């Protein structure tokens, strides 16, 4: 099976090489693709000097557009499984084989690395957990999928949803929306317990002040996404 690890990176010069070393140590059989989302620091130079396979986006698209570029790459080059893996040092590649195991066996379409199944490692602040619980309930209500860690950026999808996400992927804070998008299209979604760390350096993309905006935007997007008239089966159109 051809497996692609998509690593979105925006100004991650302090973390990206650690992330790649970590990947190489535990998942050397998977191809890595760093999506450099128009970083303004030395990320691009670092990637070029180290011969890392990467995309340079000429305009900053944010996490949604960046990750989607990775899915489009995976679609174009015929990958069977695509894994999303943060470039900021929060994720640990030693869980990647557990993560993709249900996809390889054909038992699931999407797997999500979850912090909240065994409650080990970095659990995020109480406020954030409360927010995540609300989104968890909302997604359960809207599409009947029971996913605990709805904001986890560590996830793997099979070929069917590589194509679906290549055609449509939420742009601003895409993680919960992507779950619902797949949920209403009948995806089998499974959570796999993982341990996450705190960021190694740099700042998270969601500051404390923006949490309220985050909750409102994502909740609204979930409801609107459920009401969306777009046809529910994913578009399989081939791109030129």
């Amino acid at each position, binding site marked *: 099976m051809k497996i692609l690890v998509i690593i979105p990176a925006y100004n991650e010069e302090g973390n990206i090489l650690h992330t790649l070393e970590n990947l190489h140590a535990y998942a050397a059989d998977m191809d890595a693709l760093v*999506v450099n989302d128009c970083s303004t620091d030395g990320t691009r130079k670092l990637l070029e000097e180290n011969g890392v396979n990467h995309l340079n*986006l*000429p305009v900053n*698209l944010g996490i949604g*557009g960046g990750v*989607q*570029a990775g899915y489009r790459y995976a679609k*174009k080059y015929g990958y069977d499984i695509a894994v999303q893996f943060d470039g900021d040092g929060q994720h640990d590649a030693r869980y990647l084989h557990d993560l993709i195991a249900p996809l390889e066996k054909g038992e699931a379409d999407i797997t999500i690395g979850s912090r909240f199944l065994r409650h080990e490692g970095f659990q995020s602040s109480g406020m954030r957990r409360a927010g995540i619980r609300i989104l968890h309930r909302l997604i359960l209500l809207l599409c009947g999928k029971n996913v605990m860690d709805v904001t986890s950026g560590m996830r793997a999808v099979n070929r069917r949803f590589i194509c679906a996400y290549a055609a449509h992927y939420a*742009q601003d804070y895409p993680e919960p929306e992507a779950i619902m998008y797949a949920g209403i299209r009948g995806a089998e979604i499974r959570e796999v317990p993982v341990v996450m760390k705190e960021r190694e350096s740099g700042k998270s993309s969601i500051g404390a002040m923006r949490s309220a905006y985050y909750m409102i935007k994502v909740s609204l997007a979930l409801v609107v996404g459920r009401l969306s008239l777009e046809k529910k089966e994913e578009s399989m159109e081939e791109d030129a």
Partner: protein
Amino acid sequence: MISLRMQVFSIVAVVLFLVSLVALLRKNRLELKYSLLWLLSGLVMLLLAFFPGLLDRFAQFIGVYSSVNALFAVLIFCGVLVMISLTSIVSKEKREIVRLTQEMGMMENRLRELEKTLEELKEAKEGV
């Protein structure tokens, strides 16, 4: 009721508006598709300026006492329509920019791969 003076000024204003719109269209500074709403609202205004009686009847119909207030309501409504259509256009363009950016990123990646292969081929050739 609308005074004759006001009617003259409205006609002049609306004609100026339509003339500048057409001038912009002729110079290709506006896309016709995006100015249809402006043209349409301009024509409605022109109609009302020439036949203020229509405005009076419309005001009565929607229950507004002063015809001028009804005019404001119509204008604001037209403005809101145009703004919504602009937001929709911006959203579409954003989607297109995202797609183009992603494609460009993939092209650049492919180009680098090809350059690398070419470099390797050259070296192999020189080695022989």
